[in-house]
């Protein structure tokens, strides 16, 4: 009996010991965010182990993506964010109608034009072969600082032809803006703003930018039928005797509508660009090779090709139809090269264009989850 009393007293002491006035640490438990894999899409995702996606991280990333103070400056004429160039209505490209970048050729805060035009910022969570026209950011890059979207954020802030800022100034600025430290705490467990966490948050938001509900997606799911012209274009798109787009740009079996691989597609005969695929791979056959862009939402993007030489899709189709340039570096998939192209007649050109337009995803282009927030944390 005496033993039992001792045990009871001891247990009571143990249980009530936690009632002292010591601060109780709140466990950091952000809400995991899971990507729903759309029909036919890859199940392998490019999400770094050190940056798991969370609801809080994505929310913070969305603010940062749209906040012009990412430039590290506060003067109205010195603001620049990701969204300054990456416009949702243009599938997060600049678009030829960009109000500040005529023809869709972006320049940085200092007025220096970017070396290449932009790539669409969609479905990037499925890109594991390399980001950028040359694929210079890739997961197993021996240079650890050049591997993923997170690194792209830092490079954008530092680049002379983009923000031309410095990471310390940027993180210090956000530390002082009301509301942001709290958001960093929710997302990463600390209210101390670090640039690494700025990178992480923006990258998390970018990985949510998924386009998968175009007319063609609905056709794949059996929800709608394509018009006869669109079907004709689809056949052209997916046949070697037609336009043979699918080997590089996907289709039913590869709904990313890109391989994310790099091809010399016959634009030139001389290659002097120091930032082509050759600059990364060192393979001589990669002279003049660039990433095959996704054709999703391609209708609203532009200008086209790495140097933005074509303003319209019609020009692009005409190029592939009749204007290919022979060089020793042409990719072997360009088997129509010696004919100058795929030789489409006007009706085929129209059909192909109509099919490509079925890849426009209006739901994505207007999705409020991806758009600029109504107000920033210090405006609430």
């Amino acid at each position, binding site marked *: 009996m005496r033993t039992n009393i001792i045990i009871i007293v001891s247990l009571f002491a143990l249980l009530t010991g936690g009632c002292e006035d010591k601060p109780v640490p709140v466990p950091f438990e952000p809400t995991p965010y899971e990507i729903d894999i759309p029909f*036919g*899409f*890859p*199940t*392998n995702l490019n999400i770094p182990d050190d940056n798991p996606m969370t609801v809080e991280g994505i929310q913070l990333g969305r603010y940062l993506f749209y906040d012009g103070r990412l430039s590290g400056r506060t003067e109205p004429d010195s603001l620049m964010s990701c969204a300054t160039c990456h416009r949702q209505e243009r599938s997060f490209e600049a678009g030829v109608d960009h109000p500040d970048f005529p023809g869709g050729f972006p320049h940085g805060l200092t007025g220096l034009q970017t070396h290449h035009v932009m790539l669409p910022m969609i479905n990037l969570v499925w890109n*594991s*072969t390399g980001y950028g026209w040359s694929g210079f950011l890739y997961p197993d890059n021996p240079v650890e600082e050049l591997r993923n979207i997170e690194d792209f954020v830092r490079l954008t802030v530092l680049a002379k032809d983009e923000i031309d800022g410095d990471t310390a100034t940027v993180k210090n600025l956000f530390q002082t803006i009301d509301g942001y430290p709290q958001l960093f705490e929710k997302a990463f467990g600390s209210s101390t703003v670090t640039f690494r966490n700025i990178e992480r948050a923006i990258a998390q938001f970018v990985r949510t930018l998924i386009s998968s509900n175009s007319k063609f997606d609905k056709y794949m799911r059996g929800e709608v039928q394509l018009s006869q012209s669109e079907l004709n274009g*689809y*056949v052209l798109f*997916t*046949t*070697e*005797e*037609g336009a*043979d787009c*699918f*080997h590089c740009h*996907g*289709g*039913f*079996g*590869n709904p990313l509508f890109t*391989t*994310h*691989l790099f091809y010399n597609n016959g634009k030139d005969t001389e290659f002097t660009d120091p930032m082509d695929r050759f600059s990364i791979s060192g393979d*001589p*056959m990669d002279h003049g090779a660039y990433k095959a862009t996704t054709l999703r939402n391609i209708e609203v993007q532009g200008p086209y090709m790495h140097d933005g030489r074509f303003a319209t899709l019609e020009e692009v189709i005409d190029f592939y139809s009749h204007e290919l340039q*022979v060089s*020793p570096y*042409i*990719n*072997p*998939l*360009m*088997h*129509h*090269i*010696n004919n100058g192209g795929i030789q489409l007649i006007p009706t085929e050109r129209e059909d192909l264009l109509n099919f490509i337009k079925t890849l426009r995803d209006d739901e994505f282009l207007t999705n409020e989850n991806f758009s600029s927030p109504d107000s920033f944390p210090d405006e609430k």
Partner: protein
Amino acid sequence: MNSKIKTNKVLLTTLPGPLDSGRLIITKFTILITIIAAILIVSSCDNNSADPIVSSGKLKLEFLHNIDGQPIIYDSLMYFNEAGNHYLVSEIQYFISDVTLHQSDGTTLLLDSWEDIHYVDTDIDETKTYYLKDDIASGDFSRISFTFGINEEKNNSLMFVNPPKSFMFWPENLGGGYHYLKLNGKWINELEQVSPYNFHLGIGQIYYSYPDSITGFVQNYFTVEMPELLFDIKENETTTLQIVMNVDSWFSSPHTYDHNQWGGDIMQKQDAMAQAVENGHNVFSYNTK
């Protein structure tokens, strides 16, 4: 075995206990443990008598790609095929499946019957080694065979959603499923132009009016029956076979395949693919490592 049970009994029944009820619980517990142990022992004896332990090993296939008996030098215009085409090879991608081991008495063993359709890509080193998952009973074997491509039952669209396998998709309107083979390169055509060729195999089409009206499809996958090669699978060891694709053979026997005749693309040319299929039976050789 019985001594083990007795030992348990002793251990349990001699445990000190302050209460009589505790001893009772321990005694019941001891009986229960004894029964379970006995059942386990008896059942394990049964298993031993019914299914004697069979020693087993593993099989690994390594894929090599040669022309004229030498490893290919890619993107180098230095080869001549049987038809006299001066050509180069840029890349090769293909599937093999249904690997089967044959014994001299005619017994066959189909490995990894459904799960593994192996993808080989000359640009991706790790694909050039295929570790078959199955445990293989130790023994002597006389040869292997495999399916080049994917058979009709398995070749379903969207079964590979992840790259690089998904990039092998074969368009639905041309029969669907996946390319069995992509062999891409260039040759000097009759006009002395360097011209790309895409030597691609997959489901063929029968046309009412080429290239628009398709009336039927042709399954072009085929079984490669490799010649005799004695090898054995040893207990707890991995046997390695080197499978060599002799690329020049795609263009030689029994048909002299001429790029100038078929042009740069053959996905919609069943006659060309039929020649490739028949030549394909003679493309592979192998050896033990």
